[in-house]
């Protein structure tokens, strides 16, 4: 019965989403654009090829005692426990495309009383990388980025000295980019330093960009921020400070765009598919049927150095409306990995959908 439902509901269905002109306004780069999203099997007539099935994941990815919202990256769903108080407690888990847990790491440092895992990522060959803070009972706090081997054991650590790596991603050369914080001094002012940094497990910090002083003392720019690495650049969306950042690996200066969050919504998910090709999931946490919740795409105005989140028509609507995208887990090649309203398995059901802009 369920199979029939799924076949009818999600297979061989082509939905065409058109970015709403009403939201586009007068932005010169936002002419009518079409976003097609394909579900299920091959769609040769439209030039889209999509072979991924709907997959129901092992529920353990979000049922830990202190689990953060997971993300999809490099072929894995990455799930982490924010706080760990005991050694040998798995605090980062990987799930593959079959939906099963395939790897985990128990990151801990001798002498710690608590370990915070702020973010986790994965290398191209499947090794877990995690950032966080190791805390001793005397209040000593060591911010770090750790690399594990395929058995889940920590092999390399960079202590990030005065920089709190709240968000990380792994570049193709296995170096790590982080968008984080510098902490506060006793006068409640943000400590000086860069918020976007580049680390190497052998050399330590190898790059630092964008001064903390570019942002107000509060809110913290690294809260509700996401960073993603592609083949050519690291991309950040920092919702608290309304900024989208692109940093090419071969560049010495980031490109920054003012990008406001849609009214009354919170930024909950992010995916980058290359330069100026970013998607976000925005939700109203306190109102279940907000018609503006769902998947948005960024549209750029290069001359004004601004960008705008534009709702993807057909992918935005009340969360109870069947088919609406409810979660953006991340990007997988040309596809976005999402969960959708109306699926009997809820958020445990992952769907691979392909967006295509036609201008």
């Amino acid at each position, binding site marked *: 019965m369920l199979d029939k439902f799924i076949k009818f509901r999600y297979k061989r269905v082509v939905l065409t989403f058109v970015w709403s002109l009403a939201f586009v306004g007068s932005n010169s780069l936002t002419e009518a654009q079409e976003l097609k999203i394909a579900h299920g099997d091959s769609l040769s007539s439209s030039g889209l090829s999509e072979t991924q099935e709907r997959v129901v994941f092992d529920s353990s990815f979000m*049922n830990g*005692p*202190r*689990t*953060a*919202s*997971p993300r999809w990256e490099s072929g894995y769903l990455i799930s982490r426990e924010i*706080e760990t*108080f005991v*050694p*040998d407690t798995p605090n980062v888990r990987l799930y593959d495309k079959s939906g099963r847990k395939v790897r985990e790491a*128990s*990151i*801990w*440092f001798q*002498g710690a*009383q*608590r370990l*915070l895992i702020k973010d986790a990522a994965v290398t191209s060959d499947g090794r877990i990388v995690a950032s966080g*803070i*190791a*805390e001793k*009972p*005397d*209040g000593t*706090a*060591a911010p770090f980025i750790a690399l594990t081997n395929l*058995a889940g*054991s*920590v*092999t*390399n*650590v960079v*202590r*990030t000295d005065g*920089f*709190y790596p*709240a968000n990380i991603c792994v570049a193709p050369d296995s170096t790590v980019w982080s968008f984080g914080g510098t*902490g*506060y*001094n006793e006068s*409640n002012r943000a400590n000086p330093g860069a918020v976007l940094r580049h*680390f190497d*497990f*052998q*050399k*330590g*910090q190898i790059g630092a960009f964008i001064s903390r002083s570019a942002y107000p003392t*509060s*809110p*913290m720019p690294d809260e*509700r921020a996401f960073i993603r690495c592609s083949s050519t650049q690291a991309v950040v969306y920092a919702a608290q400070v309304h900024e989208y950042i692109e940093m090419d690996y071969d560049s010495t200066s980031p490109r920054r765009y003012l990008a406001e969050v849609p009214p009354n919504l*919170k930024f*909950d998910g992010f995916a980058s598919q290359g330069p100026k090709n970013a998607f976000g999931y925005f*939700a109203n*946490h*306190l109102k*279940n049927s907000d018609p503006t919740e769902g998947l948005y795409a960024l549209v750029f105005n290069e001359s004004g150095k601004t960008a705008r989140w534009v709702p993807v028509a057909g992918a935005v609507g009340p*969360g109870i409306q069947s088919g609406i995208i*409810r979660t953006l887990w991340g990007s997988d090649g040309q596809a976005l990995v999402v969960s959708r309203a109306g699926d009997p398995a809820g958020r445990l059901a992952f769907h691979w959908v392909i967006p295509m802009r036609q201008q």
Partner: protein
Amino acid sequence: MRKKSVVFIFHRSHLFVSLLGAFLLFSVGSARTVAESCRIVDSKGRPLPSVYQGLKPNPLYANHLLQRVKWSSSNPGGPKLLLLTYSDTKDVPCGIVQASSHDGRSRPRLRKAQFDCSGHYMFLQIRPCTQACGGGNYDWYFSDPEESNYLAGYEILGDGCNGCTLEEGSCENGNIH
């Protein structure tokens, strides 16, 4: 007498095997967390014997961490109780309330907690709502040394996860963000 010796020898060998087993188990357990070949460097790439090498203790943060550890040990299953810091206005000292989190759709209960102002050390993390609560995410603040000297309060925004829990928002210098 002979029997006693045998028993004694058995006990000694048993003890030896037990200790050996415990040692091996400990070794394997350690290997899962930090490999023996683990290399730690500082931000300049200089090797460190320990991740804490040269860092200063923070008594203020230590006090808060102790409270957090105590709370955690009494709630090993995690967020059956959510710690929420509440601030009416900037003139009123902030205090913590505890809210029960559950999978049903009834409103959570609130009650006063034992200690104050731990929200000064908190950092936003986005957490998934349970399936029974209809999916989606909610905001939860965790103590964090990044803000250990930064005086901020927090406000309860209202029901999150369709009423399954409460969502907390930051309230910095009297302004809600």
